[in-house]
């Protein structure tokens, strides 16, 4: 399964692996907290996904170009010294982009900002972003890293949308805020509360894994 870890070569492979095969939520299982907390409605999910994707793209751009430049211009011993403090560097870069998102969202989409609550500042500790910076962006060129970040961000957003669509449909009988079923439908309130989130995610994750097991591709987890 070495191909599954590195992903197939080529631009399309770098981009598409994050969407499905290495989906951050369902397959790598990173970034669960925001996924569960904001997936009450599809609108929230798209807002969170867009914010996380922006931070992912920005931090990837800075980290990959910074580490690439340092690798080229520093002597190897000096570069190894820099490597020892790479995690704090990543965290500062990520936190700066999160601050940008936080302020922009507060100014332009205050309602969304209020609904997402503390999960906007908490994008800093979203493991997907630090994970991609460490595992991919610091070792690859800017172009490949941006494609990887875009794919991962899209995969995260799609996973959030799937999760929130199930919860919004069953918990409120709506999709994008518009009623879907007739007035006779009685929504299951529990789906919009905490238990619904955990159970839906568990079942969806099981579904993804069932699909992999059926195809005999179980080398990932």
């Amino acid at each position, binding site marked *: 399964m070495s191909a599954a870890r590195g992903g197939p070569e080529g631009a399309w492979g770098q981009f598409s692996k994050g969407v499905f095969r290495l989906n951050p939520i369902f397959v790598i299982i990173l970034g669960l907290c925001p996924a569960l907390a904001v997936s009450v409605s599809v609108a929230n999910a798209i807002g969170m996904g867009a914010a996380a994707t922006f931070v992912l793209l920005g931090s990837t751009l800075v980290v990959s170009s910074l580490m690439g430049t340092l690798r080229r211009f520093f002597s190897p011993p000096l570069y190894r010294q820099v490597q020892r403090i790479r995690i*704090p560097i990543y965290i500062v870069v990520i936190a700066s982009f999160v601050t940008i998102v936080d302020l922009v969202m507060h100014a332009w989409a205050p309602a969304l900002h209020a609904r997402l609550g*503390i999960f906007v*500042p908490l994008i800093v*500790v979203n493991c997907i972003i*630090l994970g991609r910076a460490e595992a991919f962006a610091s070792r690859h060129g800017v172009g490949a890293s941006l494609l990887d970040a875009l794919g991962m961000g899209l995969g995260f957003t799609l996973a959030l949308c799937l999760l929130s669509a199930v919860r919004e449909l069953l918990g409120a009988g709506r999709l994008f805020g518009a009623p879907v079923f007739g007035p006779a439908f009685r929504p299951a309130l529990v789906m919009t509360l905490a238990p619904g989130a955990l159970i839906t995610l*568990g079942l969806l994750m099981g579904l993804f*894994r*069932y699909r992999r097991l059926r195809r005999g591709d179980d080398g990932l*987890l």
Partner: protein
Amino acid sequence: MDFFELLMIFVGVVLVHNFIFSRFLGLCPYVGVSERIPSAMGMGMAVIFVMTMSSVITWAVYEWVLVPCGITYLYIIAFILVIASFVQLVEMFLQKSVPALYRALGIYLPLITTNCAVLGVATLNRQEFFGTPGSLLKCVVQGFGGGVGFMLAMVIMAGIRERLDLADVPEALKGIPIALITAGLISMAFLGFSGLSF
């Protein structure tokens, strides 16, 4: 501000708004380290300590540095840096002076930096308490209570997962999926606490 108010904050954060079962903070370590009761206890202890201390430190940084300088909008960067360096410092201190405790907590400490419950409690403190009278004490209680609630959730889950090993779980649900579904059922039970009011 009296003792009663602090008690309400504590009970609220441990049972009603439990960090894991109702606020979804700190799920990664919750899923990752809750397989055996001893490791769940170790992680819980480390989280209680770090959450209490980082509540105090972020309060001090915010009130004494960020507010006087007028740069409160940089709180995200300041908080995460302070928490990360605090965890690093604790690790170094324990390694030198209390090696037994370091060995017990050792592997869990670095994991805590990316535990969103720690940054989460600092952000919640900022939203709810900063600038109100007695804010430091409330922050400490919320940090400590949050850690206790986290440990409670971890230990309950570890107890169940030790038995789950013997159960006949469908292949596709083994491991994390069944852990999440179990957590969902526990959190349904915890919903009962939401009627708890004084």
